[in-house]
C-alpha cells in the first residue's frame, strides 16, 4: 500500500475508506492535517484551538465519510467542514472573551509552534512583520477574513472558494477586492504607528 498510496487521488482514497479501508483515512489525515491547520490558525490566531478544530474536522471525516459524494472535490468538502467549525469556534471564543497572551502569535516563547518554513531573519527583510500581518487579518470582518485566507494563504481558486463558502464567484471577487484593500489600509496604519 505504501507505494500505491502516492498514486491515489483524494477522491479515490475517500472511496476506499468508504469501503472500509482505514489506511486510506490515515493517508488523508497525513495529506490534510497541516493544510487545514494553516487555514484554521490564520482564522483563529490560536495554535491550541486550531489544532483542536483540525482534529474535530478529521473526526467528522471519519464519522461522516459516507456522506461525501464525488460531485465536488474532496478538498472543497473538507475545507467546508473546517471553515464551519472554525467559525463556530471563533463565535465561542468571542462569547467567552478570553484573550490569553500565550495563544497570541509567535511571541510566546513557552509554546513552541512547529513550522518548517519559519525564518526569523525574514522579518527584517519584509515590509511588514508576520505579527502585523496576522493582526491585520484579525481585524477583518469574518466574510473578508475567510476569503482572504483561502485565496492568499491557501492559494485556492475563486471557483473553489465559491463552492466552499456557498457564495457566487462574483461575491468572492468582490469580497477579495474589498478585503485586500482593507488589509492594505490596516497594514499601512500599523506601520505608521
Amino acid at each position, binding site marked *: 500500500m505504501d507505494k500505491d498510496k502516492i498514486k491515489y487521488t483524494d477522491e479515490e482514497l475517500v472511496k476506499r475508506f468508504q469501503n472500509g479501508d482505514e489506511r486510506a483515512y*490515515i493517508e488523508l*489525515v*497525513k495529506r490534510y*492535517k*497541516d493544510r487545514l*491547520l*494553516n487555514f484554521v*490558525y*490564520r482564522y483563529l490566531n490560536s*495554535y491550541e484551538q486550531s*489544532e483542536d478544530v*483540525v*482534529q474535530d474536522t*478529521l*473526526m467528522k471525516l*471519519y*464519522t461522516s465519510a459516507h456522506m461525501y459524494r464525488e460531485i465536488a472535490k474532496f478538498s472543497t468538502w473538507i475545507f467546508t467542514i473546517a471553515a464551519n467549525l472554525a467559525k463556530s469556534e471563533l463565535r465561542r471564543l468571542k462569547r467567552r472573551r478570553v484573550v490569553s497572551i500565550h495563544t497570541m502569535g509567535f511571541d510566546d516563547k513557552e509554546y513552541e*509552534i*512547529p*513550522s*518548517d*518554513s*519559519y*525564518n526569523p531573519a*525574514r522579518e527584517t527583510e*519584509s*515590509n*511588514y512583520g*508576520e505579527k502585523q*500581518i496576522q493582526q491585520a487579518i484579525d481585524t477583518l470582518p469574518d466574510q473578508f477574513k475567510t476569503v*482572504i485566507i483561502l485565496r*492568499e*494563504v491557501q*492559494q485556492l481558486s475563486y471557483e473553489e472558494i465559491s463552492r466552499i463558502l456557498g457564495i457566487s464567484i462574483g461575491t468572492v*471577487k468582490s469580497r*477579495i*477586492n474589498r478585503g*485586500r*484593500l482593507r*488589509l*492594505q489600509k490596516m*497594514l*499601512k496604519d500599523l506601520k505608521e504607528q
Partner: protein
Amino acid sequence: MDCYSFDRIMSDYIDANLNVKTRKEADEHLSICPRCREKLTDMKAVLIELSCLPKLKTRSDFESRLMDRIAKSKEQRESGFVRAFRDYSRPISVVAAVMLLVATSIFVYTSVVIPNSPDSVPSAEIRSVAPDRTMPAPAAAAAGTQLAGAKTETELPDSNKIERPNYNNQIMMVNENK
C-alpha cells in the same frame, strides 16, 4: 478611468481577470497616476507577504491523539448500545410477551370461540335444519303465556294458515355456492 474605478478593479487587475478593453484603460490610468501606481505596488507586496507566511505543522503526536479519540468514540458508541440494550431489554420483553398473549387470544377467539358459538352464522358446512322438531310458533306462544300466568284468551290460529319457514331454499342456495 479614475482612481475610484481603479480601486474597484485593482484585484482583478492583479489576478489578470480583466477583459482587454478594461485592462487597457487601467494601464492608461496607471501611466498617469502615481498614487494608484504606488497603491498597486504596495498591494502586490502585501499579497506576496501573505502567500509567504510560515507554514505551520501539527505536533508530532497529532495523529496518535486523533486515533485515540476515534477509538474512544467507537467504544462509547458500542457501550452506549450495550447499555441501552441492558436497560431496556426487560421492558421490551414484557411488552413483547403481552403483545404475543393478545395476538394469541385474538387468534383463539376468532378461530375457535366464534365458530362454536350457537349464535354464529353457519359457515360452508351446513347443519341440517329440522323445522318439524321445533314447536309451532303459535303453540310456543300459547305455552309461553300459560307459563307466564296471564289469563288471556288467545285465539289459536288455524295451523293450516301458519306459514312455516322454508329452510329448503336456504339449503339449496348454500349447496349451489359449494
